[in-house]
């Protein structure tokens, strides 16, 4: 059910009015029923049992991985990853299983996968002390996070489910702010985004016959469209969750004001960035620092970890080669930003470097540069590699002509 339909409106009203007052098993059952209805409308008859089965596999893996050492953990993660790759139908690598991609279309599969990895790892490490099936299922299928995040942590979900928000979270004004947030999200996703949609980059665009300026504007417009669409969805879901008495992690914070790619990833899809930091970057960096050769050069270890993290981010976003390129572009950019920060800190000293970054013209230039970079990188979100390369060639030719 799309978010602008009366069916979703009724489901949300039901959730908002019933979940906060219900208690015990009734509350669990009602929430599970609402989540089930929501995911059924997207997954349908074929995919729902597959997706729920996958969730339960994650639960079993988490229980088995607890207290059984690294081997069990690695086996669990490998199993979950293999099933994910099979269901997703990756085409950017060697063929995993013919026909897999069309078997079941599970919207939100990537988010489910990351949620389960988090639960398995944290259960194995003891960070999740108690893993209950009823919390776990509602956590995975939570209609406010299942489709496109935010990627909430299990501990946060369970604690809020048991304890709820402090009383300040129940005032009329807080609820009105939440309702306004939902309306704002609807405006972004169903008024502003469709307004921008006709002007964005699309696959199959006649790149050669369009002017460089027009192509650049379409590229900018795509970033704006993506932001409106995704942040609009997040606003709707975060607002509804707040009305239900839950606080979801924030995903967006004025991304257009990012001054470098590193800050960008903390302002865009923030919950994903934090997940990647905790489960890919930090373990990889720790491992790299201890590795022979790489560990001797701290920056190399950092660079390798960043590249690996962004490669995972790219591949997670999509099943084709262009997403790999997207991830690598961002990985390289992050490495360059870190390198630049290290060089400038060594040259100017930390305090002077901070002051230098805060000067208005540097801040503006950095913001513009970051905006242009992130817009251009998004070209590989929507175009395939060949089209993307042709786009950049065209833009480069136009830039050279303009400069001359």
């Amino acid at each position: 059910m799309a978010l602008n339909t009366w069916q979703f409106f009724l489901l949300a009203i039901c959730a908002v009015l019933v979940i906060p007052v219900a208690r015990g098993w009734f509350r669990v059952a009602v929430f599970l029923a609402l989540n089930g209805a929501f995911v059924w409308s997207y997954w349908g008859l074929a995919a729902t049992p597959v997706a729920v089965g996958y969730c339960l596999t994650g639960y079993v893996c988490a229980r088995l991985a607890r207290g059984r050492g690294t081997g069990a953990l690695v086996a669990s993660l490998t199993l979950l990853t293999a099933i994910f790759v099979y269901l997703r139908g990756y085409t950017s690598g060697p063929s995993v299983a013919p026909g897999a991609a069309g078997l079941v279309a599970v919207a939100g599969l990537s988010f489910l996968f990351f949620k389960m990895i988090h639960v398995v790892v944290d259960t194995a490490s003891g960070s999740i002390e108690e893993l209950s099936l009823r919390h776990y299922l509602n956590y995975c299928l939570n209609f406010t996070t299942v489709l496109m995040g935010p990627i909430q942590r299990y501990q946060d979900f369970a604690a809020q489910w048991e304890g709820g928000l402090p009383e300040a979270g129940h005032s009329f004004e807080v609820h009105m702010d939440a309702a306004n947030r939902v309306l704002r999200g609807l405006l972004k996703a169903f008024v502003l985004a469709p307004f921008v949609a006709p002007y964005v980059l699309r696959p199959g665009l006649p790149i050669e016959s369009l002017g460089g300026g027009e192509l650049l504007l379409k590229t900018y417009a795509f970033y704006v469209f993506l932001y409106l669409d995704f942040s609009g969805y997040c606003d709707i879901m975060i607002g509804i969750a707040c009305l239900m008495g839950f606080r979801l992690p924030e995903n967006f914070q004025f991304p257009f004001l990012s001054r470098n790619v590193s800050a960008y990833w903390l302002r865009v899809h923030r919950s994903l960035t934090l997940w990647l930091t905790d489960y890919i970057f930090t373990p990889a960096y720790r491992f790299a620092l201890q590795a022979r050769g790489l560990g001797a050069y701290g920056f190399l270890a950092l660079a390798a970890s960043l590249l690996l993290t962004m490669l995972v981010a790219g591949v997670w976003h999509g099943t084709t080669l262009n997403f790999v390129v997207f991830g690598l572009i961002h990985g390289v950019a992050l490495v360059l930003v870190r390198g630049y920060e290290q060089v400038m800190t060594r040259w100017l000293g930390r305090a002077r470097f901070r002051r230098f970054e805060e000067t208005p013209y540097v801040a503006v230039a950095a913001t513009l540069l970051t905006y242009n970079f992130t817009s251009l990188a998004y070209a590989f979100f929507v175009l395939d590699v060949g089209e993307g390369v042709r786009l950049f060639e065209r833009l480069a030719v136009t830039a050279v002509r303009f400069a001359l």
Partner: protein
Amino acid sequence: MTDTRRIALKLLWMAALIGMLVLFGQVRHVFIYQAF
């Protein structure tokens, strides 16, 4: 700003958002034909 005034302004903002959604929202409806 008093509570009442603040809440009144927020209600006004809510009305404006609803108005924009009603007027410009991409509501699904049946288009029987493209007129000509």
